[in-house]
């Protein structure tokens, strides 16, 4: 089940947790709930990554402005994920294409690599549908929102 790459010695085996996000923000509570669970679960020091496909890609668009709908714009919080040791956000290219979106329509999200003198590295990885399918199949636990 575990190929041994993701173990961290005394603390035992780390598991690969992936949060799969398939819904646009604000219309339902799924997106916000997912993000909150992600932030909480970061305390458990597992190998956490996020996937965005279908309407879930809309969670990462830039220029979100929720002032007029009276809801909190939580999109800036994705930029804090690097601080929470989350280094991988996978976005499915086909889902972007289907919705008329391009990678440039998404927020620029980076994390600072402490091991490389705080060099800024991109958090978002655009992957194809078949690549994402393979990534899903490598996880130990999938959480769906």
């Amino acid at each position, binding site marked *: 089940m575990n190929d041994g790459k993701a173990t961290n010695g005394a603390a035992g085996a780390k598991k690969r947790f992936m949060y799969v996000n398939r819904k646009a923000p604000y219309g339902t509570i799924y997106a916000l709930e997912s993000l*909150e669970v992600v*932030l*909480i679960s*970061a*305390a458990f020091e597992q190998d956490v990554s996020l996937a965005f496909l279908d309407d879930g890609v809309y969670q990462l668009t830039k220029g979100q402005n929720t002032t007029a709908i009276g809801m*909190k*714009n*939580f999109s*800036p*919080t994705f*930029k*804090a994920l690097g*601080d*929470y040791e989350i280094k991988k956000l996978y976005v499915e290219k086909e889902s972007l294409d289907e919705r008329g979106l391009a990678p440039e329509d998404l927020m620029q999200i980076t994390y*600072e690599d402490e091991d490389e003198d*705080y060099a800024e590295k991109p958090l978002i990885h655009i992957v194809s549908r078949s690549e994402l399918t393979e990534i899903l199949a490598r996880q130990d636990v999938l959480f769906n929102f």
Partner: protein
Amino acid sequence: MDAYVLDSHSYEHDEEGYLKNLSEWNKELAVLIAVDEKIEMSDEHWEVVNFLRDYYEEYQVAPAIRVLVKAMKKTFGPEKGEQKYLYQLFPYGPAKQACKIAGLPKPTGCV
């Protein structure tokens, strides 16, 4: 509804003392909340409180303690980027107490 009262103006808070409306926050109110927490605000306390407010402004989330320590370390250096240092300032939990004084919601994942 529970509220802090300052200069005959009341500021609503939840059952744990976190401010309901973070836009109402001001420095005098922060001092009052700190008194409730048995904390006398020093420059070091303000440094943390202001740091938390800036973090929230940018990310719309109050950082977990581990994240706060790491971010403090980067901004203020290793001496202040220590759990111990933060606990000396805020003995009942830096994230909880400092966030409350900063007028922020309780950090996500903090129970």
